[in-house]
């Protein structure tokens, strides 16, 4: 394949990945999903970098991507810690749960009233022992719903 169509294809894939990530980060409120979308955008860019690198016959772009991957791995670890901490505080993964950080004079944005979790017992997901079929917890769907 000649370099130009290869570049076009790769850039298309990169753009699609980026756009998917962008849409995801703008529409989803789940912190983990938002984080995944951000990673998706990152990888879209990485694909374009590799494509351009290949097109120009220059290793610089690919080296940069290796660095991006490394940094993304570190960043993922940190971001997950933050997400877990945020979850521990509110019991929710919803980003809107943190909108109390807004300017105090503004009113709250409510698109969908969240169910109150005060009435629910705090049941945390547990891991089953290895090699054993996980036992279904009857409360789990309930917990999942507001995660």
């Amino acid at each position, binding site marked *: 394949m000649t370099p130009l169509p290869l570049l076009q294809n790769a850039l298309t894939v990169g753009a699609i990945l980026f756009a998917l990530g*962008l849409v995801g*980060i*703008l*529409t989803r*409120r789940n912190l983990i999903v*938002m984080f995944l979308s951000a990673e998706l955008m990152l990888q879209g860019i990485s694909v374009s970098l590799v494509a351009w690198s290949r097109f120009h016959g220059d290793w610089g772009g690919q080296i940069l991507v290796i660095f991006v991957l490394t940094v993304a791995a570190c960043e993922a670890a940190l971001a997950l810690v933050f997400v877990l901490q945020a979850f521990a505080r509110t019991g929710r993964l919803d*980003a*809107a749960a*943190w*909108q*109390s*950080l*807004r*300017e105090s*004079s*503004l009113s709250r*944005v409510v698109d969908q009233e969240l169910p109150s979790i005060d009435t629910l017992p705090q049941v945390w997901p547990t891991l089953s022992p290895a090699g054993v079929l996980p036992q279904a917890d009857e409360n789990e769907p309930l917990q999942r719903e507001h995660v």
Partner: protein
Amino acid sequence: MENISPSTLLMLVPLLPLAGAILTLLFGKALGSRAHLPAIAGIAGAALGSLVLLVGTSLEVGVAAGVHAEPVRPVEMITPLWQWATVENAYTPAADTQAAIPGTPLSATTHEARPFSITVALRLDPLTATMLAIITCVGLLVAIYSIGYMHHDPGYPRFFSLFALFVFSMTMLVAASNFLIVYVFWEAVGACSYLLIGFWFHKPEAARAAKKAFLVNRIGDFGLAVAVFLLWMSYGTLDFHDTLSANGTIVPGILGQTRLADAGGYQLSDAAGFAGGTIGTVICLLLLLAACGKSAQVPLHVWLPDAMEGPTPASALIHAATMVTAGVYLVTRCAPLFVAYPGALVMVSIVGATTAMIAALIATVQNDLKRVLAYSTISQLGYMFASLGTGTLLGFTAAIFHLLTHAFFKALLFLGAGSVMHSMGGVIDMRRFGGLRRVMPITAATFLCGACALAGVAPFAGFFSKDEILATLHSKAWPEAHGNHQQESPAAGHANTEMSRLMPTALISSAGTAPVGSPSGNAASVKDGLNSLNRPDVWRVLFLMSLVTAGLTAFYTFRAVFMTFTGPVCVPEEAGHSVHESPPVMTLPLVLLAAASVVSGWVLWSTDWLAHFLSATPSLTFAAVAQTAVAPVFHLNLAIQGTLAAAIGIVIAAIGHLGRRSDGPQMERFLGPFGTLFANQFWFDQLYSGLIIKPFMLLATLAAIIDRSVIDGLVECVARVPLAIGGLLRQLQSGMLQRYALAGVMGVLLMVLALAWQLRS
């Protein structure tokens, strides 16, 4: 010990009280009731040193040789300590050097730029030695008295620390040999005075009195500051003494021997080595203003009576014996400057005599014992100024003589009043006690000695010094009665009228050319106007005022004595049951001071030692003053006049108050409208309140309103701009992550679009 040089001794005199002050400050709390020890040790050492210096200096001057036909050799010792500040090439004389420093002989040096260098140097001459002895000796006695007087006070260490600090400042003031150093310690004694008047700062009256004293003194200090600036501009140095410049030439000091010797006859004021024209007159008047502030002369006298809110020993030392005499010292020190301008001199006398009279009149109706003494201090300082203003050697020495005797008897009277107050439980109103001579015999006897000295009763100290002052004024008023002395002192005497007759023609022609930097017509007319006051009839009025004041002095003094010590015993209830004579630590200084009040006048007058000694002061050795030396003739008719005035005063006081209780404002009623006038202190306070304080308060209120509304409003407007912008931007902070992300995306899109637009076009 016998190897200590005079310079070391001179350094020790201020240093020991300073060390005492610092030690008392640091360890006062630990020493407790013995906190006075470091301070008193320091002052005692200084007193000893001063006396040794006095004896040493007087040996150097030599004994009196009868009528001094020739000026005495000036005696002066300079001890440079360190260089305080130096600015190279600070003073460049004007192109026409003669205009800048008329008559300066050292033409080689006058054209060079000179550094502004302030050397901290101490000087020793007869005037300084006399002042040091007075300050430290009276200071020591008052400090010993304070042990008894202050012993209950919680601020005991603070008092002694301030007291020693004052003695340090005052000794430095009279020992400094540079106008700037004089200014520094002029302020320092003012600060000590402020701190001691406000010693009981929790009393609102004391705090207010301290503030008033400080502020009124600022006016005088302002005069001194401007005078120092003008002196620098005119002379290019601020040193009293001659100094050596870097290349070994002599820079003549303002009062240095080079200039004084060059001034020669001092015959012609404008050309006689001293800054000529208007500047010279203005310097003298500013120095007089400074002296008026510190020495409580009209119109700046209002602070002294209020200063009595301070502890009595502080009043005795600072506001009677020493600090208030700083003005007298300053004028005496600057005698050559004043003698060059007869107009300024006569102003000194007019201020002095007026003050003496006004203060004496006010004192006649005061009922507060300490206030009587305060007004009498103002009055006696007025006497000294009246004497200084004559510009004759006798005038200057008589003023210092009166300063010395006054220091003794006024300190004695104040300490006596303090003793009464101590015993009466803090009551000082003379109407509320009486007959105390039976209760406090020592205080009564010593107070009587002081009162006799103050009133000018014959063998007591005040009689001789007051007689000399009256004689000085008399010799100006009726020169023909005093032989031909006046004929020899044209510059000091009848300046302009007789001068042309007596001057050699050459000098007159130089007088015509001298005032190059000379006055505009208006200013010159002021100077001529002042000079025209120097007439015998003016002096006659001043003499009569002084004579009347002598009578008034005797009256109010003995009124106080009769009201306090005679009649039936009467004690206010505040005193409690244990009315007693003061302890020995308080009566001992009283007795010593009483002895000094009795003998000092007679001894010094009969031997003529002081006048001879002082005449060796460089400032007083120069021709114009020395020529006017009047032999200490005992003017019988003058002595009779003075004694008669005193006797009349005492008799009237006896008729009014001896053995009688006076409860109301008896004196005031007796004097009618004048009584009201005197009781309200000639409405000076009200006048200042209406003319100065009220307008200033109004201005301050106005300024406060403008500050709060206009200026603060502007500042707040500026502060509101970011607040408003922030209010708009605040709407964006919704707390929704997606919105922030959307804003970011929009921003990127905008940038991409802009980029694309740019690339396309």
